[in-house]
């Protein structure tokens, strides 16, 4: 997958589209179609399906690299310690408003008065007055009494409740292990398969991420899903311990009033951007497209808002995984991204978030590159990077021009697929300053990111092949021999 020739033009938009794969979209043909429609990265939800079918999906995604000569990006989303009630006699009961309902350890099927709750940690952590939310918050129970064997509640909002429905406990921190046995098995599988990102669900504390990092051993980047109120209270600690963040609005909107989600979304995006971590906005972005070929105007506005906030990526869940219109959903995300980024106000709006550089040479150069690109009307910023750190620093500045990332590491190129504004190319390392400049010009021409006569900004570290040494910023005009031989490797 070294850089050779174009088979698909670089995306003109800078926000990335992350598409979840599922029964509606997991064939090789459909994955290729989604990629062509605008999907930059693919999410595999480990909550559903078996590992053998996931391995086939991963192979299909990697096949895109040969087909389109572009690194592919795969995120494996671990289920996490999702709380669920047990089963009911007949599969379903009706809970009446004001009635008493008990959760216990009894494995026999439940009824309208009780059900098993197979999570002992909750019995110890719960407090009288706390709420228990069932089935994405459709039913609400209030705790009146509890001991180590039962939790007695009053039904505040009743309704139908069926087997294994989800449970949320928003008012107390439940000391759950960050990784269940299933998660550990799925994590091991995902790392064996060489996925690029691992998403950790229901993160509550920084040590949840430390535990995952020990297991991952640098084999993949780690994304923290922010979906618990406890995580909001400790946001900076959590962001520091991860490589990226997801605003998982589904469970967040269950545990918190829905009107509190938009300000929290802005806060999470702002914090992640300020701390230099890519941030994904997720859940129900084009929800109506699960059934309909076109979105509601409100959904389009929601996606646009995330782009104006400067999110690195916007995500499709059931729309692309299980809906009737997966390709149209991706194409709509693509179209919204293009339209918003063409808005002359877009650049001003994404810079509402101030990303003050850290006191390092690399950060100072990244900030300077953004400013120089605007001042001299450069066509692109081109960076040589081994770990991807320089690319992340430049992307954090949200420059007005494309960022062409040249890396000898395929894994780095793949991980950067979630990063705002980058076009990532795997190429051999350079040995000298002259080779660096010539290669930057050739690949920019070949990828169609710059034309003859354009100025580009080249960033690298000298001595070459030394990670963390970014110390060179060079402004160069695309003229010379490279114009004749740029199509050759």
């Amino acid at each position, binding site marked *: 997958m070294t850089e050779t020739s174009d088979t698909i033009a670089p995306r003109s938009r800078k926000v990335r589209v992350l598409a979840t794969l599922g029964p509606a979209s997991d064939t090789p043909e459909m994955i290729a179609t989604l990629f062509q429609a605008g999907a930059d990265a693919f999410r595999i939800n480990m909550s559903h399906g078996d590992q053998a079918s996931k391995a086939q999906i991963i192979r299909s995604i990697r096949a895109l690299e040969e087909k389109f000569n572009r690194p592919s990006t795969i995120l494996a989303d671990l289920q996490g310690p999702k709380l669920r009630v047990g089963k009911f006699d007949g599969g379903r009961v009706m809970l009446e408003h004001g009635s008493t309902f008990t959760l216990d350890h009894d494995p026999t099927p439940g009824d309208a008065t009780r059900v098993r709750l197979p999570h002992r940690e909750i019995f110890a952590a719960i407090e009288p007055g706390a709420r228990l939310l069932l089935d994405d918050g459709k039913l609400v129970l209030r705790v009146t009494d509890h001991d180590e064997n039962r939790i007695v509640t009053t039904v505040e909002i009743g309704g139908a409740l069926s087997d294994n429905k989800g449970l949320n406990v928003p008012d107390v921190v439940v000391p759950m292990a960050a990784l269940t046995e299933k998660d550990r098995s799925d994590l091991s599988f995902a790392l064996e398969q060489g996925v690029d990102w691992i998403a950790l669900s229901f993160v509550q504390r*920084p*040590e949840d991420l430390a535990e995952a990092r020990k297991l991952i*051993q640098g084999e993949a980047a780690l994304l923290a899903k922010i979906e618990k109120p406890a995580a909001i209270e*400790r946001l900076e*600690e959590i962001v520091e*311990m991860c490589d990226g963040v997801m605003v998982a609005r589904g469970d967040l909107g269950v545990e918190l009033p829905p009107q509190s989600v938009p300000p929290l979304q802005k806060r999470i995006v702002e914090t992640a951007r300020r701390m230099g971590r890519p941030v994904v906005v997720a859940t129900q972005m084009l929800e109506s497209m699960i059934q309909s070929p076109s979105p509601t105007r409100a959904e389009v506005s929601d996606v646009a808002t995330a782009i104006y906030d400067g999110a690195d990526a916007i995500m499709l869940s059931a729309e692309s995984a299980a809906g009737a219109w997966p390709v149209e959903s991706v194409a709509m995300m693509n179209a919204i991204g293009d339209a918003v980024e063409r808005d002359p106000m877009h650049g001003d709006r994404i810079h509402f978030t101030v990303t003050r550089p850290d006191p390092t040479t690399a950060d100072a150069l990244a900030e300077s590159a953004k400013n120089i690109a605007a001042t001299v009307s450069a066509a692109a910023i081109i960076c040589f990077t081994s*770990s991807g750190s320089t690319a992340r620093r430049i992307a954090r500045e949200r420059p007005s021009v494309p960022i062409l990332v040249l890396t000898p590491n395929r894994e780095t190129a793949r991980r950067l697929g979630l990063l705002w504004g980058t076009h990532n190319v795997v190429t051999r390392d350079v040995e000298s300053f002259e080779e660096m400049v010539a290669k930057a010009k050739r690949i920019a021409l070949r990828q169609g990111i710059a034309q003859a006569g354009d100025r580009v900004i080249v960033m690298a570290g000298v001595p070459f092949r030394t990670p963390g040494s970014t110390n060179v910023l060079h402004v160069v005009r695309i003229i010379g021999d490279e114009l004749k031989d740029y199509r050759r490797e």
Partner: protein
Amino acid sequence: MLREASHELVRTELARARRAATMVTDPLSAGSLRRYIGELEGELHRRAGR
């Protein structure tokens, strides 16, 4: 822990964990991060002594 990871990665992880530790106020989290930092420092010492 991190025995298979590169030296650069262990150093980066240590720096990250130390930064996070300065932000933490919860004593349980602080203890957990201190243990993580200790493990990373131990790994670096182990490599230095090889």
